[in-house]
């Protein structure tokens, strides 16, 4: 049975474009411009979904994304909001959260056992006996949730853009459109956002049987489109308000993060359902939903219905219904005074019966609650919310339109830190204290008449203009006249309950009363105990009613109850939108391509990608590393160290700076020499180490370990600012490449490329030279981190690859081999060097790693010195020692982080361990108790599987280097 009306003025559908789709296995046809729901309603489908808890049949409630009665899946995606998602060709849809279909849902029995499941029932059941809880938990988990997630759904990365404006106006109803035009006229850059496909807000549907407003809307929209100062985002919602006026605007294509200098919130109001028995039956809907159906989609909401109201809006709805050919059997006005104006008179003229001081006591269901057959209306006592059932009248009808009041769509205002007060004239929370740059206009601001809303938009725009420093005339708006748009307590008590307040969560009036009885009589506790407002529509249709009920229970004014906190998001927002294109920045040295071609296995070190080793077919990782290490021990190897932090410390105070920053002395360091540097923090904890090479009287060249480079450089900058020394810091980490040539044949290889003498005698440990390789200026530092004979060669980074290749070529006859970081770790272990961050943790002090030699306590100051003086007075609790296992050790290989155990207690742990091909045994470093640390002492390491490995404290290096 088609419910499609003849063409409506201003409708959003294109009747020449038909779209076929299926729902629950049946084929239907809609038009382009339809939402899924409107197309189904037009086809006479009333049952769109099943409720979360009781699996009650549900139809349209708001048709505006203020409820989740209609959630569907297309087999790919789930929890699709049918009320607002556009119909597209070939959709194959099903309701979510059903067991066997939306009509024959096998879980519908839950509705009949609902008395067993009062508010908070799950806190009171299933836990005794405890052993059975896992069983019940399975049952509960199975019932939980809405749609089923499709694990094959493709990854979608939406674009996230940034945009800027003087004023962002959220909501393009009459007040928003007016504000945009006024702001633009004041030469402000405007971004105007509205969640609907078309601008206009309530102008697109609230007509009261009269299409004149369409002309006003067309004019407003035409002016907006013509204004070069206004940028419009339609079908876009403001997801939340964030600090300093940042509002993410969400569309189907992605998110635009709008940064505004000021924000006008003209988001309007959410219509709130009056609450009576069976107010959730398909056919019972909000008055504004009925209007949206008629005017946006040309769909007749029902054939014969009534309007239950408590404000003037209900009469407007009745006129719209009549105009659309609906037989309106009655208007039921819950107010004792009712309404007396021209619209009421017109309805009476049209033969509509007006029941003043009446309520809908209950809606009568058809079989299976799949729709309604009538309404029972009774005289209503507003003060007690009781119906006089003795005087009940039954009206046959297939639909009810409900208009009892509104709640401000104030989530964004709350997020901005606004203050709201309750206005008794309109029975609504309205803003009374605005943060800087935040403005409200229209119904969210408590302004209701169409004329006043237009003026209020202009008023807000003029306030924005003066906030932004423009001289503009002030605009004033009259306060609300006439009857209240909202009823203070539109509830009808019923012994059978099922008078729903929160449709997402199936929460009835008695749930609130019972929660309060149990002590949950604070709005936040009530929310948590009843879960009101915690469903996917986040209280849009339920929070205000919950507050009203609690106020009644506690006999307090609504204002005293307060509101729950409105958190982002305004509408639930997809993770693919929020995550967007996922950036994964990474740093590569200029030799990276070569490494990759050579089979490097890469690991991430901070942002860098580094070769851990170079894979060789037929060799395990371990074997490869051991081979690379042997190449260095026996002949020569090279490693790309370009990732190392490199800083030039220049100026007259360079040495003084280093002496304050590091633990050592540098004033007397000779040019052309390098020294060890050790960095502590103010607590005396080991942070980093490296090498300082003096290249000139006033210039030191420093290295920092790769993962600490950025942080250590930052600390240098900070301390330099505090100390105000005459020093220039130059970070050349990226500008210089570094290649380390190591092994007994290193000097032989190097000497083929440089003119300077790199022999042991001419270029001893701790010295540095500046020279050239193939015309490229290089700095060479003798260091001994991985081998006794090792040269660190620094060159402009653009030449690193050429020099890498030149070294490989020069070393070919010596069997030169590249090695990676895993091999480097083994090589330095064989020499007994500890690595900060690997063999130390966030609390290690230098005494624990026996770094006393590096500490120059006689200096007047260095970072961490004062703390070390305190620490030095305390007994050590652990010490890092080098150890070996027996040459013939056959047990389980101990691993890093295996524990050192003594007398059943933890004394320390292994920090580094490996088989050393050079020492021909397993070697390592471990923390042990001080009494275990003497040379030759034997201690126990417990392996993964609980075995004990006997370790002996030895001297380093572990082999005869």
């Amino acid at each position, binding site marked *: 049975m088609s419910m499609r009306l003849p063409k409506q003025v201003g409708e959003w559908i294109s009747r020449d474009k038909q779209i076929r789709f299926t729902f629950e296995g049946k084929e239907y046809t809609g038009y382009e411009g339809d939402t899924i729901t409107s197309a189904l309603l037009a086809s006479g489908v009333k049952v769109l979904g099943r409720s979360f808890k009781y699996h009650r049949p549900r139809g349209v409630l708001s048709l505006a994304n203020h409820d989740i009665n209609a959630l569907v899946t297309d087999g790919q995606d789930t929890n699709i909001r049918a009320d607002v998602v556009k119909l597209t060709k070939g959709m194959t849809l099903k309701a979510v959260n059903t067991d066997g279909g939306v009509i024959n849902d096998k879980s519908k029995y839950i509705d009949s056992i609902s008395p067993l499941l009062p508010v908070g029932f799950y806190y009171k059941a299933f836990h005794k006996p405890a052993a059975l809880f896992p069983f019940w938990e399975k049952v509960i988990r199975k019932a939980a949730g809405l749609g089923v997630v499709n694990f094959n759904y493709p990854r979608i990365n939406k*674009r*996230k*853009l*940034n*945009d*800027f404006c003087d004023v962002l106006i959220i909501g393009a109803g009459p007040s928003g459109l007016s504000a945009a035009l006024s702001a633009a006229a004041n030469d402000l850059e405007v971004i105007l956002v509205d969640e609907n496909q078309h601008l206009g807000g309530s102008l697109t549907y609230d007509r009261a049987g009269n299409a004149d407003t369409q002309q006003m809307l067309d004019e407003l929209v035409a002016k907006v489109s013509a204004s070069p100062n206004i940028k419009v985002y339609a079908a876009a919602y403001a997801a939340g308000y964030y600090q300093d006026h940042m509002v993410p605007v969400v569309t189907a294509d992605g998110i635009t*993060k709008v*940064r505004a200098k000021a924000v006008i919130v003209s988001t309007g109001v959410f219509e709130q359902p009056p609450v009576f028995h069976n107010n959730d039956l398909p056919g019972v809907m909000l008055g504004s939903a009925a209007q949206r159906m008629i005017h946006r989609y040309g769909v007749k909401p029902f054939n014969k219905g009534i309007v239950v109201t408590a404000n003037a809006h209900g009469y407007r709805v009745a006129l719209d219904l009549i105009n659309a050919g609906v037989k309106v059997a009655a208007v039921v006005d819950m107010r004792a005074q009712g309404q007396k104006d021209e619209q009421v008179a017109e309805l009476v003229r049209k033969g509509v019966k007006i029941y003043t001081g009446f309520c809908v006591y209950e809606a009568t269901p058809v079989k299976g609650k799949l729709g309604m057959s009538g309404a029972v209306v009774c005289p209503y006592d507003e003060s007690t919310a009781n119906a006089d059932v003795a005087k009940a009248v039954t009206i046959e009808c297939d639909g009810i339109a409900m208009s009892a009041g509104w709640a401000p769509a104030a989530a964004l205002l709350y997020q901005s830190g606004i203050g709201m007060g309750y206005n008794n004239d309109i029975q609504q929370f309205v803003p009374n204290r605005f943060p800087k740059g935040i403005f409200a206009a229209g119904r969210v601001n408590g302004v209701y008449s169409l004329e006043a809303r237009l003026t209020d938009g202009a008023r807000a725009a003029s306030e924005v203009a003066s906030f932004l420093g423009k001289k503009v005339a002030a605009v004033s708006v009259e306060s609300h006249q006439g009857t209240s748009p909202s009823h203070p307590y539109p509830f009808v008590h019923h012994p059978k309950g099922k008078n729903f307040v929160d449709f997402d969560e199936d929460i009835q009036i008695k749930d609130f009363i019972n929660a309060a009885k149990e002590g949950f009589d604070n709005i936040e506790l009530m929310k948590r105990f009843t879960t009101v407002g915690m469903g996917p529509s986040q209280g849009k249709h339920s929070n205000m009613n919950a507050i009203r009920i609690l106020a009644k229970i506690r006999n307090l004014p609504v204002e005293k109850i307060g509101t729950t906190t409105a958190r982002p998001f305004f509408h639930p927002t997809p993770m693919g939108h929020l995550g967007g*294109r996922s*950036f994964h*920045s*990474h*740093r*590569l*040295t*200029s030799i*990276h*391509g070569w490494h990759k071609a050579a089979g490097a296995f890469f690991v991430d070190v901070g942002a*860098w990608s580094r070769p851990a080793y170079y894979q060789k077919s037929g060799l395990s990782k371990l074997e490869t590393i051991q081979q690379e290490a042997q190449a260095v021990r026996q002949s020569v190897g090279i490693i790309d160290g*370009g*990732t190392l932090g490199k800083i*030039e410390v*220049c*100026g*007259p105070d360079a040495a003084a700076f280093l002496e304050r920053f590091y633990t050592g002395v540098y004033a007397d360091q000779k040019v052309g020499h390098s020294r060890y540097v050790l960095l502590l923090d103010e607590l005396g904890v080991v942070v980093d180490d490296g090498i300082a090479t003096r290249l*000139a*009287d*006033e*210039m030191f060249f420093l290295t920092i370990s790769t993962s600490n480079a950025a942080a250590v450089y930052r600390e240098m900058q900070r301390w330099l600012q505090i100390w105000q020394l005459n020093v*220039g810091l*130059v970070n*050349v*980490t*990226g*500008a*210089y490449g570094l290649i380390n040539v190591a092994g007994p044949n290193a000097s032989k290889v190097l000497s083929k490329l440089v003119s300077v003498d790199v022999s042991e005698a001419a270029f001893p440990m701790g010295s540095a030279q500046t020279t*050239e390789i*193939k*015309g*490229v200026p290089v700095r060479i530092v003798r260091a001994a981190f991985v081998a006794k004979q090792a040269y660190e060669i620094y060159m*402009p*980074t*653009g*030449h690193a*690859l*050429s*020099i890498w290749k030149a070294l490989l070529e020069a070393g070919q006859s010596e069997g030169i081999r590249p090695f990676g970081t895993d091999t480097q770790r083994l090589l330095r272990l064989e020499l007994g060097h500890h690595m900060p961050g690997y063999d130390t943790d966030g609390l290690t002090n230098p005494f624990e790693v026996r770094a006393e030699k590096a500490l120059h306590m006689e200096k007047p100051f260095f970072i961490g010195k004062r703390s070390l003086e305190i620490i030095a007075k305390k007994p050590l609790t652990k010490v890092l020692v080098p150890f070996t296992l027996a040459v013939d050790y056959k047990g389980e290989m101990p691993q890093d982080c295996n524990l050192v155990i003594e007398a059943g207690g933890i004394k320390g742990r292994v920090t580094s361990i490996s088989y050393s091909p050079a020492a021909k045994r397993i070697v390592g470093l471990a923390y042990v108790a001080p009494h275990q640390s003497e040379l030759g002492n034997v201690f126990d390491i417990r392996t993964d599987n609980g075995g004990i490995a006997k370790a002996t404290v030895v001297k380093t290096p572990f082999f005869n280097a």
Partner: protein
Amino acid sequence: MTALIKTTPVAYAQHEQKPAMGVHNGMEVALSFEGAAVEKTHKQVLGVTDVSCFAKFGIKGPKAADWLAKQGLKTPDEINSWVEGAPGTLVLRLGGSEFLVEDQIKGNACNGLSTFNQDKTAGAYQVARADAAFILGGSQALNLLSELCVMDLRDSALASNAVVMTQVAGISATLLRESLAGEQVYRIWCDVSYGPYMWEMLLEIAQELGGGAVGLTARFQ
């Protein structure tokens, strides 16, 4: 001078696009990608060019501006701004007392600056530079940047002589707007090690928006 040729830091990321490489200013760079016609279109819509090969000279310290002036270069008066310091050479003032001098396709000032001697120049320190550098142009350039950069870079907000040290694609970068043969383009510099990543990000979005890689040849035709 060395006979060794440098390679652009972006080469690794460009490898799969198989550009025709050539040497400019001692560095091997991509001269062309898909041919003049295609690259011309890309240039109009959204073209990305690697110009890491442009010669650079960096200097910082309280006396840096004086020293540059002595070498006959014009330096910007305002912090975070740029001038054409010599014909075809940009001088960027990075913050208060640091400068980046970069010869453009026809500039030739950096060579003369290599005479800098740290020992004889108190209060000025040479900053070795090896930035990855890019030109971004075309009608969709701002669209791309609005995804990669949180700054308002529209003409109304970005002064024509402004140098912006900000983040692009999540990493630190320096950015400015200039006019190149009548076309408005954006220049982006980042640490050399991020060069491949920056190229990947710029190109990925450029391609989505109907643009693509533009070689050095097409860029300066």
